[in-house]
């Protein structure tokens, strides 16, 4: 019998949930997903559904849909009563917003108010958000990392890509531009629209394009599992320690060594620039890492 993938087990379990759970080989470890599985070769799934279960299964989507519609109705009803979008007397236009917009540049040194809010006024939330990314990366690694038997990319796809001159030449032209633009968005985050999250996503997409066109082997010299982990640890560690210092100073009424500087200069806005760089590196590497892990089971 051919090895079953997790999806086949899922399907079989789902279709026989009520009677067969004990008979199924679900207690075996899942090793890896085989892309070219012949579905017809699987043994037929026994159907043991009796009348009540079948009715329940038929009714289930309709009931779920109905429930969702009722919920949507309630939510829309509540939206109708909310203040209109952009109206001047909306409750959101209060002293909080006034200070963010009015004194944001002066207090944080960032011309970009959004950067000032997320990396200075409400920096603790952003500290959490950047760790959300780390958590997601670690969870994906737990799920997909196959350390024992490394999967190679499916040969066929790689051959097509290597023979494709359009892809390779376009990538040759575009990759440096994309990476450069990404770094610009990261470094310019406190002066204009952009920042670590946006710029990191651009850098990540540049790296992914590079990997598609030239293969993972070349990129591995720049970014492998080891260096990926090191970048993550350095950036997030720096982020946590720097913000901890700044929170500590703020709460105890001390001055920090980071000054707001002259708004508009590239070296200004205190911690915001280094934090943007840290976040950008984490986001970029993680985007690429996700692609690599999903594609071949390792970075």
């Amino acid at each position, binding site marked *: 019998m051919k090895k079953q993938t997790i999806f086949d087990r899922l399907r079989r379990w789902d279709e026989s949930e009520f009677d067969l759970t004990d008979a199924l080989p679900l207690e075996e470890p*899942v090793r890896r997903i085989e892309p070219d599985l012949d579905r017809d070769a699987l043994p037929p799934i026994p159907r043991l559904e009796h009348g009540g279960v079948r009715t329940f299964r038929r009714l289930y989507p309709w009931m779920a849909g109905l429930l969702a519609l009722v919920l949507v109705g309630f939510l829309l009803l509540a939206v109708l009563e909310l203040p209109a979008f952009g109206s001047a007397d909306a409750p959101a236009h209060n*002293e909080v917003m006034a200070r963010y917009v009015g004194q944001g540049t002066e207090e944080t040194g960032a011309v970009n108010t959004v950067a000032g809010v997320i990396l200075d006024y409400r*920096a603790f*939330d952003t500290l*959490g958000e950047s760790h959300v990314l780390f*958590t997601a990366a670690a969870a994906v690694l737990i799920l997909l990392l196959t*350390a024992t038997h490394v999967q190679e990319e499916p040969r066929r796809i790689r051959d097509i890509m290597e023979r494709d001159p359009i892809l390779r030449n376009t990538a040759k032209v575009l990759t440096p531009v994309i990476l450069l633009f990404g770094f610009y968005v990261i470094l310019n985050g406190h002066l204009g629209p952009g920042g670590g999250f946006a710029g990191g996503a651009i850098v990540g997409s540049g790296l992914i394009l590079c990997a598609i066109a030239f293969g993972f082997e070349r990129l591995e010299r720049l970014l492998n599992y080891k260096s990926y982990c090191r970048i993550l640890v350095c950036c997030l560690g720096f982020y946590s320690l720097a913000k901890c210092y700044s929170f500590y*100073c*703020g*709460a105890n009424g001390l001055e920090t060594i980071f000054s707001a500087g002259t708004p508009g200069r590239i070296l200004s806005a205190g911690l915001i620039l280094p934090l943007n760089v840290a976040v950008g590196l984490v986001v970029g590497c993680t985007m690429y890492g996700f692609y690599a892990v999903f594609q071949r089971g390792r970075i």
Partner: protein
Amino acid sequence: MSFAANFPLFCIVLALLCAVVSGVLRWRAAAILTEVMAAAVAVMSAFVLALALRTGQSTSYPMGHFPHPWGNELRFGILEPLVSGVFSLVLLCCVVGGRKALNRDTEPEKRNLYFSMVDLIQASLLALVYTNDLFTGYVFIEICTIAACGILMIRQLGRTTLASVRYMIFSLLGSGLFILGIVYLYSITGHLLMPELKQSVGELWQSGQYRTPLRTAIALITLGLCIKSGLFPFHFWMPDTYGYSTPCSAGILSGLVSKGYIFLLIKIIFDVFGTEVFYASGMQTVLYVFGVAGMVFGSISAMRENDIFRMIAYSSAAQIGYIYMGIGLSPRLGIVAALFHTLTHALTKPALFLSASRLSEVSGGSKRFKDLQGSAHKNHAAGAAFAVGSLSMIGLPLTMGFIAKYLFALAAFREERFLIPTLLALAISTVLNTFYFARTLIRVYNTRDLGAVKPVGLGSQKRFAAAGALLAGLNIFFGVIAQPLIDLLTRGVALLAG
């Protein structure tokens, strides 16, 4: 400001740093780091608790140079350090006591990531407990959700993968409703910090303006956290999630993660909605009714199981029902009872999962009741820890479970309209609990057809024995000397209410 006031910040940053560093360490080092971190957090929480008791008031701790309503903030009275201290002790016990099963269930290459996830759960629980900002709560709910899926699916069986898909769907539904609720609340108040929110919500309720969005927000936030903590009828992810994960994860998920959400809900009820608005909005009755239903139906489901892990998991659904019934009962005494039961359950469930895994180990790895016959004689330590946990869940005197049920009954006597249903539900649920826990106890201590056995000595399971002894010991200690803890909780709730 006393130096101990900085400790909540240090605890959170320490846990985050340990999580990130564990990503590059070998797993043994990562495990030691996690244990040291949990112990350090427990010690720091004790200092914060001492500070709060000395000053007798709750302290706001601005995260940065900007006070509320502009910047993020932490806030702690008596409850927060108490709860976070107990949580980190329980986490420590899970990690220490569940190590052997963890080594069996996971691949060594990924094991450091497991400890990374545990550190992240610790960080997010601390943040959920200490936060004074609703949106910070959401951010750390996200971390907690993903990390919980991580520690669940690291045991790569077909069933655990299915269980984590299920858990993720339910959990994301809960997070989604929660964030929608925040959006509504922000649009009608313009604030995210709890003190300003409470003021605005109170004013809006008085004036009657934006009544529908406000009710919707209250319902969405409450419902979201209820789904995430597994209130009936949203408890169907529990048996698979707790039943098939590695015991350490089962202990952390059932004992801590769901409790973190419940504590956040209690904090939101006091500090965001205000008890008057919350109890006038009708959500109280909803929580009460579903809590009572959960108490009964969770126990009935547990009775029908013949797999020990799934039975303990369904019993969690019943215990969560108790907690929500307490929240629904009354704003002061009911919540004190709910908090007491939260701590009871946090101390009991991990002990049950850890000891059940040991009992199944000496029974040839089977989790069926018929194979567990006499297993307590093969492993005395596991049998003892299981017995203490079971008796506490039944609610026998000298355990925390008894005090919790006593407090629920006491709270019910103050609420005329809930008196009869509460007492009835407590009675029925206790009978059902007794039925399935006593059945299990009799089974594992039954010596029929046992023959000669060589019990597993303490020497070969020092780590489990220490963890089990700490959990069971605390359970009995607070069951015998409950008054100081009840006083602490009562003072804490009074501080939270402001």
